[in-house]
């Protein structure tokens, strides 16, 4: 292929001794390839186009005639364009347009938005000159990012990346702070959840419970009323401190002896997707009601040269298949479901310290029970009203 990129000619040599010419070419350092000798005194061979002019002095005294059979390669293709001026102009215009378009932003992707609307981020970017069709921004990107960041306190961090014609903006939103009570307001620390106290540290106020005590939601953990028995006036303080408790999260799930699962029907259909600059221009429509797309991969060399991406894959038809489950499968399914439900109840800030599971059979149904023990802060500051 590389030889043809530089241009090659296929020549036919006829005469008494084409081998003699071959040896002269060899001596002159001219490489030849694909040498065919269909009959005695005749040979076809391929050589580089730039070596062809060197043949004239070499063929003298060889008694050989040389004819060009074919010219192949890029230089000859380009030469043909001499006579097709409109096509050549069109190709040049397309190339110029492509080069010009590749220095502009055509796709903007925003990720990480949950409270801040995506449109707001796009508006901030547009204010800084980043919009679809705009050229790449001048100056350092961090300056631009700093200006966006300073403009909205809901945005904790923003990253802007330029990747060819694609601009990606990643947002990390600020976590809103919970309103805190005034330190002069008398408060108690109460339990928000029931559990067994594992640690208590009153920073202000008096502890009402001890390690090992079982508490219910609403129980006072650290009391803000520290009035002595013989005092004439009540002494109220703003109680606060850290109270950790072990919380038990139970969950159970049942697994039936039969299960209906999606499975391959055996029928497949091809999948194609063509996207230009990240925008899908064509995508195959799945011919089945239920399907799964697999083996998707990029085809062709376009991704590295042009902003065109072609993907191929296969649609697999999926059908509902009912089958009997083994006792082990039932137990695993019940425990997986129960465990998932139990984990969903555990707050992210809690530390899991223990987990117990049990499986029982009832009327042919397997029931899995999962108990997760988590240690977490349960204190909540509540104003004393009476």
């Amino acid at each position, binding site marked *: 292929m590389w030889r043809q990129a530089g241009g090659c000619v296929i020549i036919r040599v006829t005469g008494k001794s084409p*081998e003699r010419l071959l040896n002269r070419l060899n001596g002159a*350092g001219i490489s030849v390839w694909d040498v065919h000798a*269909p009959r005695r005194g005749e040979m076809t061979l391929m050589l580089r186009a730039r070596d062809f002019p060197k043949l004239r002095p070499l063929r003298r005294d060889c008694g050989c005639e040389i004819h060009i059979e074919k010219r192949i390669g890029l230089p000859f293709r380009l030469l043909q364009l001499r006579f097709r001026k409109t096509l050549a102009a069109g190709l040049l215009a397309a190339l110029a347009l492509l080069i010009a378009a590749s220095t502009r932003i055509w796709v903007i992707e925003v990720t990480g938005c949950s409270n801040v609307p995506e449109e707001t981020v796009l508006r901030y970017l547009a204010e800084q000159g980043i919009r679809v069709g705009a050229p790449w921004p001048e100056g350092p990107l961090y300056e631009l990012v700093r200006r966006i960041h300073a403009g909205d306190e809901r945005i904790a961090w923003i990253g802007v990346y330029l990747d060819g014609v694609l601009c990606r903006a990643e947002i990390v939103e600020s976590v809103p702070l919970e309103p805190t009570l005034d330190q002069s307001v008398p408060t108690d620390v109460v339990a928000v959840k029931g559990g067994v106290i594992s640690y208590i540290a009153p920073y202000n106020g008096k502890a009402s419970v001890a390690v090992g005590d079982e508490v219910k939601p609403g129980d006072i953990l650290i009391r803000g009323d520290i009035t002595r028995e013989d005092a004439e006036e009540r002494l109220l303080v703003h109680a606060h401190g850290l109270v950790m408790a072990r919380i038990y999260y139970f969950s159970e799930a049942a697994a039936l002896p039969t299960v209906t699962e999606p499975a391959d029907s055996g029928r497949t259909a091809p999948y194609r997707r063509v996207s230009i600059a990240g925008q899908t221009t064509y995508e195959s429509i799945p011919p089945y009601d239920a399907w799964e797309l697999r083996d998707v991969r990029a085809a062709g060399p376009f991704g590295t040269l042009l902003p065109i991406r072609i993907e191929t894959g296969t649609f697999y038809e999926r059908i509902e298949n009912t089958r009997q489950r083994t006792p082990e499968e039932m137990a695993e399914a019940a425990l997986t479901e129960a465990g998932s439900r139990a984990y969903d109840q555990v707050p992210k800030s809690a530390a899991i310290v223990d987990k117990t599971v049990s499986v029982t059979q009832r009327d042919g149904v397997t029931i899995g029970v999962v108990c997760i023990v988590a240690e977490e802060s349960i204190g909540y500051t509540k104003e004393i009203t009476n």
Partner: protein
Amino acid sequence: MARVKLPEKWNRALDLPREVSSAVPRLTLVGRDELLLENHRGILAYSDREARFLTAAGAVKIEGESLILSEFTEDTAFVCGRLTSWRFEDGI
């Protein structure tokens, strides 16, 4: 660029493999349809049934059917086709 060919006695003195630096021919047969001949000195005859090359060790005759000289450079000749035999010919 042609490789530098050292005289045989230099090769022996330097303890070099002969085929690396001397002019002796080296034939590599891949399956029965590809043959690479290195260190040749030219082609004597060529048709689609036989190819004869000159080497420092004499003439090498390669016979077969539908022979193609896939590559022919200063040092190497790569012959493809259905090879049936090769041999050195004396008296050249």
